[in-house]
């Protein structure tokens, strides 16, 4: 087994060892250092950086739990938005398909940095979104989207949804239509056939999408940086600020170590959950 499994995994594992594990040793080491006044880093062996975060319920609630919550919410919305689109695209072909795929990828291709212009025009107090909503009588006072968590979530969805579509497509396309027919034949409506047959079989793609988008969201910093306010304490942004604006590398390193641990636990949880749910069944070897 080892003989068969190791060679194909070796290049990736070696790359990870050399370019992730070794550099991360430095991060772990730095996380035990001290920061003197004036952003001066001193070699030390202290747990202060960890206790500063983990021992402070304010950080735990407003940064860690906040980030997890926002990442989960944005991921969930992305999935809900992207799934039907992926279903639709899977049924198209030729030019229509290419156009749809292009449109899906366009926002990512153009990049957040430039699209922020468009978003400001849409989001700002007297912007297009508020004008529209007020005109439609959804609400009558301008709502704050820009420099607010609402905008951050919308933007995370805006960026996340295309990734979900991309990761779902192949799973959807490879489902044999006979399986759906068989379900329809035993009395399943389209809807039931979808939920009981198609949906479970798209789980591999869905899982991929969720993992990707959750990881992106959880460590996001560009979106909260540009769309968020000082109160959007997304942990990725906090790391960015501590490392780059406050020069507090020890604290940023400790935060990173914590993030890696939390992230790994969440992803591990997802792996177990999805594995139990379906993936294990699809992985049985013939």
């Amino acid at each position, binding site marked *: 087994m080892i003989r068969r499994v190791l060679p194909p995994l070796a290049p990736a594992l070696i790359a990870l060892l050399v370019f992730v594990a070794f550099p991360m040793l430095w991060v772990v080491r730095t996380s035990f250092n001290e920061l003197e006044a004036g952003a001066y880093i001193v070699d030390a062996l202290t747990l202060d950086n960890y206790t500063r975060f983990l021992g402070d319920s304010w950080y735990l609630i407003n940064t860690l739990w906040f980030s997890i919550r926002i990442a989960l919410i944005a991921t969930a919305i992305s999935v809900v938005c992207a799934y039907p689109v992926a279903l639709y695209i899977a049924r198209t072909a030729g030019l229509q398909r290419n156009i749809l795929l292009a449109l899906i990828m366009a926002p990512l291709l153009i990049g957040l940095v430039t699209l922020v212009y468009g978003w400001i025009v849409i989001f700002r107090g007297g912007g297009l979104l508020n004008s529209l909503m007020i005109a439609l009588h959804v609400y009558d006072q301008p709502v704050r989207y820009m420099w607010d968590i609402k905008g951050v979530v919308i933007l995370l969805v805006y960026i996340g949804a295309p990734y979900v579509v991309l990761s779902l497509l192949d799973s959807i396309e490879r489902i044999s*239509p006979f399986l*759906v027919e068989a379900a329809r034949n035993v009395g399943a409506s389209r809807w039931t056939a979808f939920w009981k047959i*198609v949906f479970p079989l798209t789980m591999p793609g869905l899982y991929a999408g969720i993992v990707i988008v959750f990881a992106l969201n959880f460590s996001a*910093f560009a979106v909260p940086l540009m769309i968020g306010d000082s109160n959007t304490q997304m942990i990725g942004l906090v790391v960015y600020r501590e490392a780059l604006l406050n020069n507090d590398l020890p604290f940023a390193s400790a935060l990173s170590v914590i993030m890696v641990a939390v992230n790994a636990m969440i992803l591990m949880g997802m792996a177990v959950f999805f594995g139990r749910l379906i993936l294990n069944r699809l992985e049985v070897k013939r």
Partner: protein
Amino acid sequence: MIRFDFGTAALRLITLLMMTFLVFPIAVTLVVAVNPREFILPPNGFTLDWFRAAWSSKTFLRGMGVSLVLGIAAAFLANVLALPAAMALVRNNFPGKAALNIILMSPLLIPTTIFSLALYIYFVRIGYGSGLLPLLVGHTIHIMPYALRILTASLHNLDPSYEEAARIVGAGRIRTLFSITLPVIRTGLVSSFALCFILSWNDFPISVFLAPPGWTPLPVELFSYIKFQYDAVAAALAGSLILLSALAIVIIDRLAGLRRVLRS
């Protein structure tokens, strides 16, 4: 055939809404890019000044070139690393597989800022502080887990007998991979490549640390630019990118169509 006609109308509507959601900001950006008053809507005229400025900026053009080359190279390398790993993971059940999966996903767990900083410091320590290698490695490693996930999903539904059939007519592992496996999972492969390219194309933190002088990718150039300068030049650049992608799609479609015509 009743493929997946689950409420076609509803699906079409949702897709339409989603596309609007995705495209609307782009459209607005385009309007900004031809609006003499930039962000003040409605536009009071039409100008190509911003476009002209964008296209006469050597930094942007060079940045675009760098991002393009970098994205393609990194996406390629990431998939090359991820594909065999994905195959090994999907085809075999062994103890510790879940843990291995997480290890392979590790670049995804580390905040990009710290990852790139650590990688940068590491490269300097081992004496490769400058040059293109760190930049390429950084991008490749960062996007590899994404490729791994998408390819794994693709391989889940692949019937192994396709490969067996190729092996038995004399194709070695490599030939089977290229002639059978890859074509069969091509949607997944294209998705994976596209996703990797986009991730690299959009990356900011890794490039900030690892890009050697003269090889600054577009997002870094753009971010530096808009940090202070707030005009529609960047919007015009976005507009140019939209038009370029549209052109690329038409060309690809033509080529694909052409191939189909030639075959029949």
